[in-house]
């Protein structure tokens, strides 16, 4: 359960990262407030995830889970964005 939460937090962070690079990821550009919020969440969500992982699972297992969540959430985010791009390009 903890890992699912970590995955969700990292996925949110990656999606905010994509929102900050709209041209690269083919997303609509956010306004200044949206940019500020995305920047805060990109930093805040992984920090929260780290606190959760270490707090619940201890330092060693927690850190391993946190890094694993980074990797798999990144893959998930990339797949979602790639599929979105493919759907958008479909005639």
């Amino acid at each position, binding site marked *: 359960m903890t*890992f699912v939460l970590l995955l969700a937090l990292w996925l949110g962070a*990656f999606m905010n*990262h*994509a929102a900050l*690079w709209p041209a*690269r*990821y083919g997303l609509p550009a956010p306004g200044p407030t949206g940019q500020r919020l995305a920047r805060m969440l990109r930093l805040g969500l992984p920090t929260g995830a780290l606190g959760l992982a270490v707090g619940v699972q201890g330092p*060693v*297992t927690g850190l*391993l*889970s946190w*890094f*694993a969540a*980074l*990797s*798999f959430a*990144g*893959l998930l*985010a*990339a*797949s979602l*964005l*790639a*599929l979105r*791009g*493919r759907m958008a*390009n479909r005639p």
Partner: protein
Amino acid sequence: MRETLRTRLGWLHGWFGYGAGLVLTCIFATGSVAVFNMEITRWMQPEVRLSAPVPPSPPALDAAAHLVAAGQARGVSAFIALPSARSPTLDVLHYNGHEFVGTRLDPATGTVIPARVTAGGGLFYNFHHTLFLGPQAGTIIVNIAGMILLVAIISGVVIHLHALVPDIILLRLSAARLRAWLDAHLLMGVLFLPFMVMMAYTGVLVKADMIVPVAPRPAARSVQVPALPPAPIPDMTRVQLAPLLAQARASLAGQEPGFILFAPQRVSIFAGDASSAFLTRDHADFSLPEGRPLPVDATATSIARTMQLMHGLHYARFAPPGLRWLYFLSGLCGTAVMASGLVLFVMKRRCHAGHRWAHRLADGLNVTVIAGLPASMLAFLEGNRLLPASLTGREDWETGIFFTVWALCASHALFNALRVQAHHAWRVQLGLVGLLGTSLPVLDLLCSPAAFHALPGLHMAVDGMGSVAAIVALYARHRLGRQGA
């Protein structure tokens, strides 16, 4: 072209990466599977149907001690592995030069379980850290490959540094083939960078003594010490292990005993590897044959503690099942990074060097490693079900099946690649992986229905992994057919 640091590192990353990548892909693939080495051994011994570990009873421990004594009388140095969550039997094991093999006992009654002899998951574990080339030469080669992996990772990071953060989740499936492969390589390479660095660094460090031997300290005085006569082996059948185990459990402070080792003058009860992320190998010693507790120095320096953590992180024996799956999946993604690197290396050079024999050789080696290795791993598992259970030298037959199938795959791939038919080799071998992977659950259900019924989770996990490998291989074969060579 202007020579820059990036172009030089690109050359280093490409050539070093390709050379070592062929070996590293095999090391990473077998290492990922070896995370479940004990579970695979249980799958390969369908006669063992115990689902949960029970504490070993005194008669069972006595029976195990009798087996150890019988082994010592034959000159075989055996030890006792106590039941654990991953292996619920009481095992009397010895090292046969490649794997730990031996007899499995029911921990409640002490009766011998007539389990078939198998190479088990130990084959993958052994291949991962020695390439089956022996503990000395093999470990040195694997260690050097690990160091090259670290060089390839650092050079790859420097090459990709300017786009490392912005492009961290960039994947363009609709782009040109080369670009899409590069995106996939970069995506997984960056995302699984922490895991790959951790495994490469800890892997090199835990076996560092093989390539950087500790310099022997100069002797203070050169004195010829006469060789002592070998100590007589006490009668271990008179040693009561159950009370010693209870004492050891109390003195190991929260760590569950895992192994019992015997020396001429003492018996040592070691903490199990699952006790902590620090692989401490804490132990309680008792004199033989009286069973009197012996003093043990349990203090560890900070360097020793660091090394214990390095061992623990690399072997992941402390990890609960969920974390073990993460290790396994991360290992597979690391394997995919290396495999995509091998494919990219050949694809990038096809235009200007496709006609050269060296390029065709590289193409054939890629097929051997990326499609031939999984095919031989699946054939090894199927061989376990097809070979007669009572066959003499069964573990050698299973190992033989693994290497024979791989050698046949290599011959087929190289023969076709050198005739500019690598595309055909890819299709045939991916089809073979598909065939072996889909037939694995069927064969398991037909040959061991009782074991499947007794341990459905274990059997579905192993059979399911075979099926997933088959689906991935058949999908890749389908894509290959659509896109052409």
